[in-house]
């Protein structure tokens, strides 16, 4: 672990620090935020007032408080949807890679199918069909992400299946489940960490896009994508309404992208610098 951390470069440390800061802000939101982010008032609309450090938005809500609370939903949905995608992708990928043959063929055709859909449009179609809500958004993002994961994990499993220790375990009479859990899964863990992290960036971006299109969680809740969508009508006079939440999204996504690249280089130094 120590040697692994030594391989981390400057951008990696910076983005790790950035991630911890966003995480702390999200966790401590009720303590940091100066006001209730959902508290609307017609008298405060688009005004600069004492006690409202960044002014109020078009609904008279405290802008800074909404930005702070926005971190919560972005991270929550990013992690949750990625976790859901991981569960599906892991089971499908490992089954396909380990058992091979007809099961592999069938599962991989299902994966191909999901990869063929334009990602955002599939999310849109699913969230329209299921109606709004947190669960819908998480599902709509996960249904797009799992296929890529399954494909990568299948390839890794396929390689491990013919490793000597797996063949040895098989000869000793270990069950399939035991081999998958004690030999294949632990060896896939670095890979899983990397694709999990890289995918969070995409998931955060998808959540923001869905919220921007009005298909995210309840629009009254503070989400960065939703804030850009409602703020854009006032952009000419108050560009900050669009710029700040947009910058928050970009910041979070950049952090996870760099972190993902960094983890990949750490676990697989032979590919350092390459894609």
């Amino acid at each position, binding site marked *: 672990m120590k040697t692994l951390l030594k391989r981390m470069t400057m951008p990696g440390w910076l983005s790790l620090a950035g991630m911890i800061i966003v995480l702390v802000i999200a966790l401590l939101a009720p303590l940091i935020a100066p006001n209730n982010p959902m508290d609307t008032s017609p008298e405060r609309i688009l005004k600069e007032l004492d006690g409202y450090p960044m002014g109020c938005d078009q609904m008279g809500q405290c802008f800074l408080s909404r930005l702070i609370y926005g971190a919560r939903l972005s991270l929550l949905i990013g992690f949750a949807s990625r976790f859901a995608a991981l569960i599906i992708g892991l089971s499908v990928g490992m089954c396909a890679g380990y058992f091979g043959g007809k099961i592999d063929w069938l599962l991989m055709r*299902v994966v191909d199918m999901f990869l*063929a859909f334009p990602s955002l449009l599939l999310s849109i179609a699913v969230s*329209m069909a299921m109606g709004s809500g947190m669960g819908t958004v998480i599902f709509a993002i996960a249904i797009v992400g799992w296929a890529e994961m399954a494909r990568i994990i299948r390839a890794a499993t396929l390689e491990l299946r013919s490793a000597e220790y797996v063949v040895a375990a098989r000869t000793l009479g270990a069950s399939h489940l035991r081999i998958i859990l004690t030999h294949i899964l632990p060896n896939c863990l670095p890979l899983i960490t990397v694709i999990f992290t890289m995918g969070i*960036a995409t998931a955060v971006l998808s959540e923001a896009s869905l919220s*921007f299109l009005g298909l995210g969680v309840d629009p009254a809740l503070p989400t960065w994508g939703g804030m850009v969508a409602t703020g854009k009508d006032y952009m000419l006079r108050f560009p900050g309404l669009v710029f700040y939440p947009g910058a928050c*999204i*970009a910041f979070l996504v950049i952090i996870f992208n760099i972190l993902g690249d960094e983890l990949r280089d750490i676990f697989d130094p032979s590919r350092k610098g390459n894609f």
Partner: protein
Amino acid sequence: MIEFTLRRLMATIPVLLGILLVAFTVLYLIPGDPALTVAGPRADETTLNRIRAEMGLDLPVHTRFVNYLLKICKGDFGESVISGKPVLSSLTEKLPVTLKLALISILFSTLIGVLMGVIGAVTRGKIIDRLCTLFSVSGISIPVFLSGLVFLYVFAVKLRWFPSSGFNAENSLMPFILPAFTLGIRSAAFLARIVRSSMIEVLNQDFIRTAKAKGLSPMRILFRHGLVNALIPIITVIGLDLSSYLNGSVIVETIYDLPGIGRYAMEAISQRDYPVVQGVVLLGAIVFIGVNLFIDLFYAWINPKVRDEMLGKLAK
């Protein structure tokens, strides 16, 4: 080659069927009774039953799926719930705008992406390379709706270089430049990473050293020997990106007010016009499969080695 083409074509059939199955399932799961939408809220039970029978809604699920497949094969994507117009004819009507947007974006992204990637590969590890990497990480991280709005604000509102909104057919190029740039920059960021890594791989090979040793000019080595050999992954990415422009066009066409498929989808989303959304999703998936097929056939045609490899995989 003929055997390969046939096998490759056969391989697309299960994927196509699966896609239609997913689209059908989502349509089936959607809450609300379509018959009620057609008949209106005050219709009585007998009218509703008659409409259900006419629309085939009273049939068992598998029969409905077969009917759905037959309809799609005949080119019938259903009608818009709001306007009543057939979805397919609206799609073909709006296709030219989106296609033009996509083509100009590809032009931008290829120029910027290949240039950035080559520069990154040549100056590997130096400050210029770091800057190119920073550009590509930011490019894939900044959401399209944000860069679209920022470009609109800076170039159209503040600097007044481009029209901010309003589309007219005569002024045929200007309204496309900013939206195409917005979409193109994002793909350029992806492309730059691929070009950089495949160029690095090619530049490390023996024939490049030979070319250097026999005294060819650096530019000639880079483009004639380097880029040409790195071309296959590059073309794949450009081709597969074609369907991702459909994703981006939903947001970009709405922001810049272009009457293409993306804005059509966006209007349908806000009006909960499901058949239209489904039509756009299916179109995207079919474009993706088509492009994929074309790329594979193209590779198999130019490189028999690749063909034999792929044939082995397909026959398995």
